[in-house]
């Protein structure tokens, strides 16, 4: 078993204030976990706002250096990545997907441009045919095609489509790990499951590991293999997703689970599993 990502006692503290009235915030405190490269999985980080989950994601993406501990990707400490070439190689392997697709894209730029840029920068594609081929291949993985996206501006697409384009952009360099920070919280209910199912496809078909950051326990239960629950920067509970969410032991996890609004749990037994059968055409 070779490790894809190892997070070893990673912590991050932010200091505010000056010499007097110094104030230290511990955003992440001693988080430990690892992902293996043989078996891709959906690894979920759960926590409410301010629990440090986004800070942890930024440390994994190497955009924020940890103030304690280390993070290793394929055995190499992220702190040793300094040259532009190393950085590009790392970015080609670990890609982010952000929360709000409407803010992730510049409204004045065409969407295909982002895909072409990723293809040029990470894959070294030079000719127009190569660039377009890579963009099209990535879009096809998320159920779109270059013909649908070419020349379109962000306002011309729905939130679900935009988020799929954002995921396709992340897939252009064929990364081993995608870090998705609340990728569905801004997506409409009818399209949310499309995105969530896509993560499952990416794991099963394309062997991409996914770090899925969320506060929505229902989707976490639905797709994750393993999860950690964070409170105030510390991991309070970790383990296989179903086992943890079915029988949480830490008081904070229990509090989180109790706060989930039941969707018709009171009458779930009476509910049909499928949409009501109606006379077909």
């Amino acid at each position: 078993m070779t490790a894809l990502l190892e997070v070893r006692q990673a912590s991050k503290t932010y200091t505010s204030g000056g010499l007097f009235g110094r104030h230290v915030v511990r955003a992440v405190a001693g988080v430990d976990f690892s992902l293996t490269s043989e078996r891709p999985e959906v690894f979920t980080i759960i926590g409410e706002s301010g629990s440090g989950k986004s800070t942890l994601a930024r440390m994994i993406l190497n955009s924020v250096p940890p103030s304690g501990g280390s993070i290793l990707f394929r055995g190499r400490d992220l702190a040793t990545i300094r040259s532009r070439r190393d950085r590009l190689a790392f970015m080609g392997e670990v890609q982010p997907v952000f929360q709000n697709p409407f803010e992730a894209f510049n409204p004045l730029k065409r969407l295909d441009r982002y895909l072409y840029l990723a293809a040029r920068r990470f894959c070294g594609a030079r000719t127009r045919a190569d660039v377009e081929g890579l963009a099209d291949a990535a879009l096809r993985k998320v159920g779109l095609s270059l013909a649908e996206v070419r020349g379109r501006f962000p306002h011309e697409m729905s939130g679900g489509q935009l988020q799929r384009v954002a995921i396709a952009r992340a897939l252009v360099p064929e990364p081993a790990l995608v870090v998705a920070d609340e990728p569905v919280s801004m997506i409409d209910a009818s399209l949310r499951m499309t995105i969530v199912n896509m993560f499952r496809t990416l794991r099963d078909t394309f062997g991409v590991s996914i770090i899925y950051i969320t506060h929505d326990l229902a989707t976490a239960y639905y797709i994750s293999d393993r999860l950690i629950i964070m409170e105030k920067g510390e991991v309070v509970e970790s383990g296989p997703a179903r086992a943890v969410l079915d029988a949480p032991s830490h008081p904070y996890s229990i509090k989180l689970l109790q706060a989930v609004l039941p969707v018709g749990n009171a009458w779930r037994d009476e509910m049909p599993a499928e949409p009501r059968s109606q006379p077909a055409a």
Partner: protein
Amino acid sequence: MSLAPDVHPGPGSSAGSAAATAPLLEVSGLKAYYQMRFFGISREVRAVDDVTFTIRRNEIYGLAGESSSGKSTLIKTIARAIRPPLNVVGGTVVFTFEDGRQDIYAMSPAQVAAIRWSRLSYVTQGSMNVLNPVRRIRSTFVDFAARHLGGSRRDFLAAVESHLARLSLDPRVLDAYPHELSGGMRQRLTIALATICRPEFIIADEPTTALDVVVQKGVLAMLREVQQEMGSSILFVTHDMAVHANLTDRLGIMYAGRLVEEGPTREVFQRPLHPYTAHLIASLPRLGDDMRKTGLPGAPPSLADPPTGCRFHPRCPSAVGLCREASPPMEELEPGHRVACHVAKAHAEGRRLS
């Protein structure tokens, strides 16, 4: 603080005094379009197209729909908070407040200003947008509500403090600036702000969408408590079906500018009649349930160029030829449960469509 669905008053139980017989809000045939004319090119976005519904006294009416389904336009139109290019093209919005029945579009601007906040108030989505960041909470309360409550400043502040105490908020927050408070606390304050004048009708536009689950539960419980104590009606807008299941008495589903289904919340969740609603409910992920869920194929239609016939037919799994040609009217298929769908109607009548 229970949010269990069984505490909800049924649809009939809200009828109390004689004044309660007339519905609080009657919206009929409402059409609100964004009309733009630039350089001889005119463009019309039919954000709200022929919407009819009523809200009774003492009930929480939920409005669900995805972004760009017209729900924000609908509530702006109801509150008469519209400005060009949004225009009301047809239909009426009639309120029956304690002092009589009035069409909000027949009132003078002064009359509208008088009912705003005192009888008709608004809980917005981003609490930061309402609370002035450079004024203390106390001043914000004065800005919004002092004019409607009248009396001296001291009486007013005493009223604010007792109102906050009733909502289990510490009166000391009045001295704070918005940035000193957490998101949940700010959202509770916007609810306090919206209810200080004991309005008869409250519009709540996604008040909990920006909050996380633990905070959301507290805010919803508070809203429900305030509503039950004052006996006002709430129009609650969100795309989160779990919130609707736990809070609302009746539920309306909007799709592409039209109301497609409406009924008692429990009924809509148990027996959704419109294919869109059925899909929305079936695709909700639940804890303890690992059945495979699917997203709806396709994307919501553009309201500038909506599909012919039923606006849902390009994405509908049970669409038939008729759906492409004729727009289905909203019809009551079961008592209190209305739906706009050719297929559901035929099914209820035992016919088959081809």
